[in-house]
């Protein structure tokens, strides 16, 4: 079957759009539901999930002055690649009135099961400890965890993190009844050079089509605009449409060689 350049362009434009549609919508098969999407960092081949399924670690905890509360969370990296590093960062939004009276300690240890309880937790390393502001400042720089060196467990590489929060003994009464939140974020960070070409290509396509169909439609619109202009030029100058295609050059060359002989 012979195709003109215009028809071939339509074939390619349809192929590009179909790839974009399928790849873009297929990413929803492994993403978490919209309400908990922020708890998952996903790349082309790595997914990080917490063992609490998006439930706040300290939800429902009441602290009296001098008391300490602790909760644990298990972070698991799954996927076709093992991330070189998983970065833990702070995304703080704490009530400033609370800030001077909180002490925070973050430890990392072997993975526990589901749930927030720290029963059986054994700390391998204290990542940060001290006044809230100092800990958050330290976490702002990011604390790297290399899952590749952690014990491998079925379903991926995992570690548990214990967060201890202490309200100082001399906390003023004005703080009583106040509530605050702060966030800890885990994100994958792996060597781009270690990615296969397919991983990079897939990540590029996913990123390109992640937000909407508009980028894909823009390509198609540009292709149609180009073809429309070409069509008008062909109408205005029919000779252009008679220009020899590649396969018609061959007999043309043969004829020339016949004339030469």
């Amino acid at each position, binding site marked *: 079957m012979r195709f003109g350049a215009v028809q071939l362009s339509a074939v390619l434009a349809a192929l590009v759009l179909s790839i974009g549609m399928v790849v873009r919508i297929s990413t929803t098969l492994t993403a978490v539901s919209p309400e908990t999407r922020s708890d998952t960092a996903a790349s082309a081949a790595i997914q990080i999930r917490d063992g609490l399924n998006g439930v706040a670690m300290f939800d429902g905890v009441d602290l009296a002055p001098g008391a300490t509360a602790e909760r644990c969370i298990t972070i698991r990296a799954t996927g076709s690649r093992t991330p070189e590093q998983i970065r833990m960062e702070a995304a703080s939004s704490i009530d400033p009135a609370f800030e001077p009276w909180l002490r925070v300690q973050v430890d990392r240890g072997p993975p526990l099961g589901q749930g927030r309880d720290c029963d059986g937790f054994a700390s391998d390393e204290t990542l940060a400890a001290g006044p809230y502001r100092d800990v958050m400042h330290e976490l702002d720089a990011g604390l790297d965890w290399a899952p590749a060196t952690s014990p491998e467990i079925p379903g991926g590489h995992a570690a548990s993190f214990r967060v201890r929060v202490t309200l100082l003994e001399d906390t003023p009464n004005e703080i009583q009844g106040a509530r605050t939140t702060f966030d800890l974020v885990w994100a994958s960070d792996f060597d781009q050079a270690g990615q296969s070409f397919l991983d990079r290509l897939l990540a590029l396509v996913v990123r390109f089509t992640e937000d909407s169909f508009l980028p894909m439609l823009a390509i198609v619109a540009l292709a149609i605009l180009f073809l429309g202009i070409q069509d008008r030029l062909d109408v205005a100058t*029919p000779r252009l449409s008679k220009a020899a295609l590649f396969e018609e050059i061959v007999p043309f060359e043969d004829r020339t060689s016949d004339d030469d002989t």
Partner: protein
Amino acid sequence: MADSSALDDETVVVVPTARRDAGITLTELLASFYLWLLLWLVVWAAVPALVLGYQPVLLTSGSMGPTISPGDLILLGDPPDDELLSQGAVITFPDPAVPGGLITHRIDGVREDGRYRTRGDANGAPDSTPVEPSEVVGVGRLLVPLIGLPLLWLRSDVLSFALFVGGTGAAAFVAGAANRAGVRRREAVAAREAAERDVPTAGDDA
């Protein structure tokens, strides 16, 4: 060297119309684009099923909206044998309320007893019945949008199905006519050039 007489003005006027000779019109282009998009989506649905053995399942309800809609075709891979699936995976499992029926929902979490808590994206609450890992029929691997919509229309909306069939038929007719015209045009040009090679020019006479 090229024979300059092959492109002179007298040769051009033998073409039926300038518009037809100019090639494809915008309508013909859109018709061709639509048909190829349809074909590519069918290829995306068929090739993984044939090559990788993925099981196609047509989504018929809106419980996974807005990300996954009725008419989308989900291609299911085999569930893992020795490990639990992660939160966020879309799985298909037997409908406990309808014997022989299937439900496709997302894993919302793993219970302490090892069973999956599932939920449709559009639903406000998890499903009432947890799913045993052994009950999982398949895990969503690929999603082909819209391709199953005609089948849904055929079941419940005959008018939409008729419009789809009519529109696709019209597009096929338009694109086919354009293709046939293109073939005829090229054959005419080839015949004309062949005839020109056989006719002596004024320069040859001199």
